[in-house]
């Protein structure tokens, strides 16, 4: 008998259709965002099936799962970035501090100011470093005077751990930075509008290990002030940075648990199979 078999003896769900409910602790008290019965469709095709999840205040939650399981789709629901895809349709209750995100009357512009996003590939605007960071505050009219803007830019860059590296060349193009610095610039840009939640979709997949380590370090620091949801393909990364880990499988949320628990003793056999590299 294999150790796996021994472990799954009482837990024989291996067919994803049998997954009825998320195991572990999907719901928390003191939730910043809470999602209930979320379904997402691309045209006819359903990509997310009845997901229930809370994200706590100042928590880092990692989402992992095989390719195409719907991690990005779910993440992009949280600030309605899915609106840009025409055929995408979202059902269910998604709340940010009690306010329904998908309320048709709700305006996405302030929503996205509250729930910022960082993307897979660093995408600084082809402007100066300063202007990159100042872009958000400028469009939202957050700084009345030049001095205010300077301050916002500096604090944002500081929080993103980039200030020391760029303070002497704020007016050089942001695209001239290295990949890792660019990604930190994008994070600074997001922080600059002081969002409450930051969504990150595989923020390190385009970076080398050293730059990745720096971003991970940054996520750690940011979690003091921000709520962070991060999608990652690297299980090791999820293990390193997150407080809780959510495992998606074919559009369903199979398990959410404390990260330590997920990586040492997950509750669901599918999670176990994925993180130990037993899929195939």
């Amino acid at each position, binding site marked *: 008998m294999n150790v796996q078999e021994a472990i799954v003896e009482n837990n024989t769900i291996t067919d994803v259709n049998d997954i009825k409910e998320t195991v572990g602790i999907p719901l928390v008290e003191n939730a910043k965002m809470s999602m209930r019965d979320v379904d997402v469709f691309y045209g006819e095709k359903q990509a997310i099936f009845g997901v229930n999840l809370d994200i706590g205040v100042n928590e880092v939650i990692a989402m992992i799962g095989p390719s195409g399981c719907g991690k990005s789709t779910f993440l992009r629901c949280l600030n309605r970035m899915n609106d*840009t895809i025409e055929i995408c349709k979202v059902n269910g209750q998604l709340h940010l501090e009690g306010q329904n995100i998908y309320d048709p009357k709700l305006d996405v*512009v302030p929503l996205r100011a509250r729930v*910022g996003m960082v*993307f897979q590939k660093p995408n600084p605007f082809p402007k100066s470093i300063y202007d990159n960071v100042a872009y958000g505050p400028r*469009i*939202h009219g957050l700084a009345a005077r030049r001095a205010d803007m300077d301050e916002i830019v500096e604090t944002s860059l500081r929080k993103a751990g980039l200030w020391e590296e760029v303070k002497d060349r704020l007016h050089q193009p942001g695209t001239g930075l290295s990949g890792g610095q660019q990604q930190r610039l*994008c994070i600074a*840009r*997001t922080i600059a509008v002081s969002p409450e939640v930051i969504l990150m979709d595989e923020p390190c997949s385009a970076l080398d290990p050293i730059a990745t380590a720096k971003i991970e370090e940054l996520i750690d620091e940011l979690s003091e002030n921000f709520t962070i949801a991060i999608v990652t393909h690297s299980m090791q990364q999820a293990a390193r940075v997150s407080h809780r880990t959510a495992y998606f499988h074919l559009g369903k949320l199979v398990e959410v648990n404390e990260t330590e628990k997920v990586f040492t003793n997950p509750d669901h056999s599918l999670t176990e199979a994925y993180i130990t590299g037993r899929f195939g």
Partner: protein
Amino acid sequence: MSLSALFVLIMLGATVIYVLGRSRSLVLANNLGGIRHLHSLPLYYGAQAALWCLIPCLSLLALWVAFDDSIIRQIAIQYLPEDKQNLSSQELALLLNTIENIAGGVTSLQASPEMQAIADRVVGLRQLSSTILSAIVLSSLVLLGALGWSKVKPEYRARNSVEKTFMIFLLACSTLAIFTTVGIVFSVLFESIRFFDIIPLTDFLLGTQWSPQTAIRADQVGSSGAFGAIPLFTGTMLISFIAMVIAVPTGLMTAIYLSEYANNKIRAIVKPMLEVLAGIPTVVYGFFAALTVAPMIKDALHGLELSILSFSIGPLDVSGESALAAGLVMGVMIIPFVSSLSDDVINAVPQSLRDGSYGLGSTQSETVKKVILPAALPGIVGAILLAVSRAIGETMIVVMAVGTAARLTANPLESVTTVTVQMTTLLIGDHEFDSAKTLAAFALGLVLFVITLGLNFFALRIVKKYREQYD
């Protein structure tokens, strides 16, 4: 044997040699136990053998065709009587032409017997030359083919030599662009220099009077008028300006709307429809400008009293060949240049930048104005500069819709003339290559070339400087 028949024969021969070379290599390969024991694939052995005979034969043919006429002419001159051999070169050319014509069988000419005799001998020479050519070409085809075939050996590096030939061919093609530029420069340069010998450069560039047709100063030798080019350039600029005023905002906004706002269906319909505007020949636009738009403008505006506040400038005087009509139509023609090229560069702006902007909570127009346009700016500037040089160089619209009266004015309702109009009018039908009038066209051509060169150089610099900022 006629040239084309010879050509076809060479081609056939080369094909045969290709097949032979290829099959020989296959036989060799079989003996050795597989193609992998050959240095190259059989295909290359065949190609190598074929090239071995094809290139020399074709060059021989080309050289022969290029030189046999002049050689025969030289010989024909030898046949002429002594006195006629010493004629001036022009008269000699005339005489030779006559002989050619007789030899060619133009019966209407009354040929003197001696001429007829010479002509007969020329015909004889021609036949001889063609026979010799055929013989040489065909024999070398066979010989070289055999040589090429015999070179097919397993260790022979056929692929490498075929590739070398291929590369030389490519290199030769690529130099054509340089020759073209050199050709352009030289074809206008000498005439321009001759022109500037007659009319000083400063007069040409700074003069405000342009009237090549009428003699103003009768005492001036070889010239028939005034050659101050400024009115032409202001006219060109006026029309180009009108065109750009129409084309740039329309084109740009169209591009933005299509790539950022419109859904795919609308885009799929509207974009090609607008591109039709670019495909329509300029004569058509010229026709349209002259026959439809110009009368319309005249009807609509003529006699209209334009009053600004209480200040009236009196009834408008609209010329039938107003700059406005040509400018408008040219603007419409240029819209798709601006819109399509801008659309391409806007589409080339990576989606990630849009995502980045939306992710921060900006509206669509903010994203366009603050992120996409700046990112696409170099491309857009390039597109606009291309459109400008297109407008400056445009010929047929203005030739058809604009007058020839050179006038220094900024009023779009008056008639003006442009550089290209003057060039065509000066050159068409008049082949007197020495008059200042004709030469002036070349000088205008030169200046136009320099201007567009400058513009494009500028555009290239801009595009180079800002290219790859994102990515």
